[in-house]
């Protein structure tokens, strides 16, 4: 079932820059979608349209088959939560608890319900022991988690994240991605995540949409999108590093393979099978 639908979205900033040039995209309920694209391709602008922060100059967005115009902003924000790239833009209250409670408080919930939601959201992101800490006493990665908790406390059906791994160390990236995967798989939250880290896509995401120059070039599974190397390069992107290695082994060292392994696990499986003299189809 399609939960969010962008139909021919166009948007131009006041300085005349065309950020979106007719974007159409369907987002399935419960999927983990990556929006991959180089800087300035329109990822952030598209995300801001998907939760109604920006109004399209042309086209329309549908939420559960109904146009955004049929919802109030409050209803949209409650269903589609957004996490910004810089956590400092999003965390404005003096302490963690107060910041996470901000959304539920604006929803007009009772004190007991606010406390319940804040505790629940902080537990989900593994930050409950930090509830009374000051925001400025947190690390960058912890701040990102609190941003997510602040949005989760409003219990959205869709979570939109703008480059959430940007600025994190490798351990922080792994831990944050594991958290998002858990929210997606265990709690059924639809996740749309803008990124330009291609290595993450085949490991965590169900589907990806390639953005280039204000348009969606392709939206499909990682296997299908990364099979067209020319298209990836045209969008100023690269294959995941392990896929690059496998591509060199295939094209320059004549190692036959049906399709490129995109993750370390797939590559390992393939190589072990080759070393054992078996022929293996990736993804089988």
């Amino acid at each position, binding site marked *: 079932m399609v939960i969010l639908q962008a139909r021919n979205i166009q948007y131009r900033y006041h300085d005349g820059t065309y950020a979106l040039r007719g974007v159409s995209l369907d987002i399935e309920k419960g999927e983990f979608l990556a929006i991959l694209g180089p800087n300035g391709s329109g990822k952030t602008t598209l995300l801001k349209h998907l939760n109604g922060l920006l109004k399209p100059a042309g086209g329309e967005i549908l939420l559960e088959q109904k146009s955004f115009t049929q919802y109030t902003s409050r209803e949209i924000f409650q269903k589609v939560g957004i996490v*910004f790239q810089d956590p400092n833009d999003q965390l*404005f*209250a003096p302490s963690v*608890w*107060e910041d996470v409670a*901000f959304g539920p408080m604006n929803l007009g919930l009772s004190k007991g319900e606010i406390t319940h939601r804040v505790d629940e959201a902080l537990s989900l992101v593994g930050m409950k022991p930090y509830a009374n800490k000051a925001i400025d006493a947190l690390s960058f990665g912890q701040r990102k988690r609190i941003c997510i908790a602040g*949005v989760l406390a*409003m219990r959205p059906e869709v979570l939109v994240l703008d480059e959430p791994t940007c600025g994190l160390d490798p351990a922080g990236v792994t831990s944050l991605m594991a958290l998002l995967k858990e929210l997606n798989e265990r709690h059924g939250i639809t996740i749309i995540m803008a990124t330009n880290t291609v290595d993450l896509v085949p490991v965590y995401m169900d589907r990806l949409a390639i953005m280039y120059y204000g348009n969606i070039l392709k939206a499909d599974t990682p296997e299908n999108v990364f099979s067209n190397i020319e298209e990836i390069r045209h969008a100023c992107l690269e294959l995941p590093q392990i896929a690059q290695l496998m591509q060199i082994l295939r094209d320059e060292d004549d190692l036959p393979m049906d399709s490129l392994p995109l993750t370390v696990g797939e590559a390992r499986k393939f190589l072990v099978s080759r070393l054992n003299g078996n022929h293996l189809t990736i993804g089988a």
Partner: protein
Amino acid sequence: MEFFHHTFSDVYARQNNWLTGIDVRVKLLYVISLLSINLWAKNIFIPLLFLSASFILLFSIKIPSMAILRSMFLPMLFAMLILLVKGLHEGERVWFSFSILGYKVVLKEEGLHSGLHIWSKVLGGISLVIAFSFTTTISRLCAGLKWFHAPNTIIELLAFMYRYIFLLLDEASTMWTAQKSRLGHASWGKTIQSFGTLGGLLVMRAFDRAERTYEAMYVRGYEGGSILTVNLSPWRKEEYISFIGMVLILPILVYTGNIHVW
């Protein structure tokens, strides 16, 4: 910038001790009343009493003396300046004189007395504020002000200022270092020019951030109103007793002639 970071941080107020445990409303009442007494004090003894009492209180909860001195440094500097200016320009009777580079410097008794009075009031007042700030977090202070029905705009501004002052300092520090590393401070002229650019850029960045923060608040349902969620519980017996204690101190001090309010 590290100096300001330490000065503004409420890390000590987040510790658990007997002073942080006192209700913020009681502390606010005491501080406001004591500040008024300090302002009306006829002599230097009451301000100095507040200064020593604040120090004793802060030492009792193990606040490092360096942290206290750091917080007092700037007001102390101004207090010394006032003392000096008063001593040099007010009065007739010479207390002390000396010559520097052919100029005669004369400190006068009346000026020094009045300067010392102001100096003691500055130190007394600032020590009370410091004792309050070392034992009260900004969110408790905002909750207290909300309880006293202070205007919401002021409370929100206070909360925002506290949240973003560290980021402003960080951004200023990063830009300052970037300018320095590209010889932006090679001469006095360049330093002034760089400083002007830095100030302008900071204002522009603050506007950008304000816009992004507003968006973040808007998507979480903000439509004006309060950003604070902490609400204080009704007063307990202890708070009433402390409050009555404060109410009694004032007339006693007026009666004994230690402060004059008219």
